[in-house]
C-alpha cells in the first residue's frame, strides 16, 4: 500500500520520444486506469513504473521514495501481463510461489501464503496442474495469484483481460476490482477498452500519443472532457463533433443555429453526445437517417446532418423503427454542451 507519483515522466527510445511528460499523483489504495488507443504509450508508462523500462527524464516515486534506479523486485510491485507470462514447466503452486522462493522464505511459509491466495482466487483444485492444462480464465487467476502472494505495495496490470471472452471479461473485471478493494493495494491498470476504464477506475488517465489528455474520475471525464480527444474516446457510441461559428449568443452549424448560453465567438467545435439528443419536431437540428441499429434498450440511428456531410449518431431510448432517408429533427440542451478550440482541441470554458 503506497502512493505513486509521476513527475514529468518522459520516455525516449533512441531519439524518438514516446512519452512526452506525464505527471500525476496516485493516492494510497486508489485504482487508476490508464486508457488510450493502441500505441499511445500506456504499456510504456506502466513498465516505467514497474522498472522494466528505464525512465528517460522525470521521476517515478512509490510510497514517497524515488525508484527510478531500483530493480523491479526492489520496488515492491507486482505485475500481471497480458499473456499471463506463467512459467510453463512449473505447477500452479510453483508459479505462485516462485517469487517467494527467490526471496528465500521458508517452505512452510511459502505454502501457507500460496494456499491463502489460492483460496481467495478459488484456485485450490488446480494447484498441482501446469498452466497449459488450465483455461484462459484460470490462467488469468494464477497470474493474479502470483501477484498477490507477494503482498506488494502496488499492482500493475497490462491489459490483463484482453485474451478472455466477453462474458468472462465482465466477471473478471468485478473480481479484480473486488480483490483490490479488499486488499487495499494501489493499482495501475492499462486497457484500451473505454468500458473497462469507465467501470473499474477510481480515476482514469486518458492517454493519446504519449500525453495524458485528462486525468479524472470516469464521470468527470464523461461530463467535462478537457480535450476533444478525451471527449470522443470516452463514451459509447462516441461523441458527435460539429464545427460551427459562434456569434451573438448563437452557434451556427451550416444552416441550422443553436441558441447559446455563453458568450463565445468565432469558430468552435461543439460536442454532442448521441444519448443527449432530444427528438423534437421543432428542434433546431436535423439529420438524414441512413441506418438504424436496434440494441433493445435503446436504438442507434446513424446518418448525416441535413444538408452537410458530417456523420452523426443519435441514441434513442427504446425501440424506433427508422426508415432510411427519413429526416429526424432534434434539439439539445445547450447548458452543458462542451466546446473545443478547433485548432488545439482544448476545451473552451464557456463563461455564461
Amino acid at each position: 500500500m503506497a502512493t505513486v507519483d509521476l513527475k514529468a515522466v518522459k520516455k525516449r527510445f533512441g531519439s524518438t520520444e514516446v512519452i512526452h511528460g506525464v505527471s500525476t499523483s496516485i493516492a494510497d489504495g486508489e485504482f487508476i486506469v490508464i486508457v488510450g488507443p493502441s500505441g499511445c504509450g500506456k504499456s510504456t508508462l506502466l513498465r516505467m513504473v514497474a522498472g522494466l523500462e528505464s525512465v528517460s527524464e522525470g521521476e517515478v516515486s512509490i510510497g514517497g521514495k524515488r525508484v527510478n534506479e531500483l530493480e523491479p523486485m526492489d520496488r515492491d510491485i507486482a505485475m500481471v501481463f497480458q499473456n499471463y507470462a506463467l512459467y510453463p514447466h512449473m505447477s500452479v503452486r510453483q508459479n505462485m510461489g516462485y517469487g517467494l522462493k527467490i526471496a528465500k522464505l521458508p517452505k512452510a511459509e511459502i505454502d501457507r501464503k500460496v494456499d491463502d491466495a489460492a483460496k481467495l482466487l478459488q484456485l485450490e483444485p488446480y494447484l498441482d496442474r501446469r498452466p497449459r492444462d488450465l483455461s484462459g480464465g484460470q490462467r488469468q487467476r494464477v497470474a493474479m495469484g502470483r501477484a498477490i502472494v507477494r503482498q506488494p505495495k502496488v499492482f500493475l496490470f497490462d491489459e490483463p483481460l484482453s485474451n478472455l471472452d466477453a462474458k468472462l471479461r465482465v466477471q473478471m473485471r468485478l473480481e479484480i476490482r473486488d480483490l483490490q478493494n479488499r486488499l487495499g493495494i494501489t493499482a495501475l491498470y492499462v486497457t484500451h477498452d473505454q468500458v473497462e476504464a469507465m467501470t473499474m477506475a477510481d480515476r482514469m488517465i486518458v492517454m493519446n500519443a504519449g500525453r495524458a489528455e485528462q486525468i479524472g474520475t470516469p464521470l468527470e471525464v464523461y461530463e467535462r472532457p478537457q480535450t476533444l480527444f478525451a471527449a470522443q474516446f470516452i463514451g459509447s457510441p462516441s461523441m458527435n463533433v460539429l464545427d460551427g461559428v459562434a456569434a451573438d449568443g448563437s452557434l451556427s452549424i451550416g444552416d441550422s443555429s443553436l441558441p447559446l448560453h455563453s458568450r463565445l465567438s468565432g469558430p468552435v467545435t461543439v460536442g454532442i453526445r448521441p444519448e443527449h439528443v432530444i427528438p423534437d419536431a421543432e428542434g433546431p437540428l436535423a439529420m438524414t437517417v441512413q441506418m438504424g441499429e436496434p440494441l433493445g434498450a435503446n436504438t442507434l440511428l446513424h446518418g448525416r446532418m441535413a444538408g452537410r456531410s458530417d456523420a452523426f449518431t443519435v441514441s434513442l431510448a427504446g425501440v424506433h423503427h427508422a426508415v432510411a432517408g427519413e429526416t429526424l429533427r432534434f434539439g439539445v440542451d445547450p447548458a452543458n454542451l462542451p466546446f473545443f478550440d478547433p485548432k488545439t482541441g482544448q476545451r473552451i470554458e464557456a463563461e455564461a
Partner: protein
Amino acid sequence: MTEAVKDPPPGMVERRGAGLWVSHAIMMFGVLIVFFPIWLAFVASTVTQPEITNPPMPLWPGDQFLVNYGKALGSGVNVPVATMLVNSMIMAIGIAVGKIVISLLSAFAIVYFRFPGKMVFFWLIFLTLMLPVEVRIVPTYEVIAGFGMLNSYGGLILPLIASATATFLFRQFYMTVPDELAEAARVDGASPMRFFIDVLFPMSRTNIAALFVILFIYGWNQYLWPLLITTDPSMNTIVMGIKQMFPSGDDIADWPVIMATSILAMIPPVIVVISMQKLFVRGLVDSEK
C-alpha cells in the same frame, strides 16, 4: 500424437490392405539391405579366422562369440577395446555436454543481453558454421600441441566443443520464448542466471535431449582429429582404433576381433538413440511452450 500415427482406424487398414502390404514390403526390403552388412560383421565376429578367409563366407553365426569378444575387450590388437570404448565415451560425452552448455550460455547472452558488438559476435559464430574441423585442423593442432594437450582428453574434447549450430538452434528457441517471461522473472526477483537455470533451462530440455543425441553421435564418430593427436594407443578412441587394428606390414589382420570391435563400437550410439528416442522425437516435433 505418436499414438495416432501408430493406430490408424481399423477401417482404414482394411481398405488400404494391398497398399499397406506393398509399402511394408518395400520398407522391409530397405531394412534388409541396410542391415545385411551389419549382420555379416556380426557373423564374422563369431567365427574363427580361417572360416572368414576361406570362401564361401559363412552366413550364420559360429560358436566363437565369447572367445572373440573376450579377446577384443580384454586385449584387442594394440590396446584393449574396453579402454578405447571408455576413451570414446569420455570424448563423446565431453563434446556433447560441453557443446550444449556452451551453446546454451552463448545463445542466452546473444538473445537476452545487450552488449557492444553483439551482432558482430553473432555473425562471427555464424561464420564458423562454414569452417568444419578439417579446414582448421592444422592451426588447431598447433595450438593443442603448444598447450601440451596431445594424448589427453582435454585435447580430444576442447577443439570440438564450440558449436555454432547448437548456438544458433538455442538462439532460435529463445527467440520464441515470450519476453514477458523474462520480465515476470525479473519482477519476481530472479537474477538473469537464476532465470536461465530455473526457467530457460527446463523449458529447453527436450531440445537439449535431441541435441545430445545428435552431438553424442557426432563426437563418437570423430575420426580425423583423434587420429591426429592420440599417438599413445591407450588414448585411442574406438572409431580410429578400428583403423589402427589393420596391420601395416605383412601381418595378418585378425578379422574376427576387428569385427567384434566394430560391433562393440556401434552399441553405445544405439543405446543412446534408443534410450533418448522419446525425448528426441519430442524435441524435434514440439517445443512445449
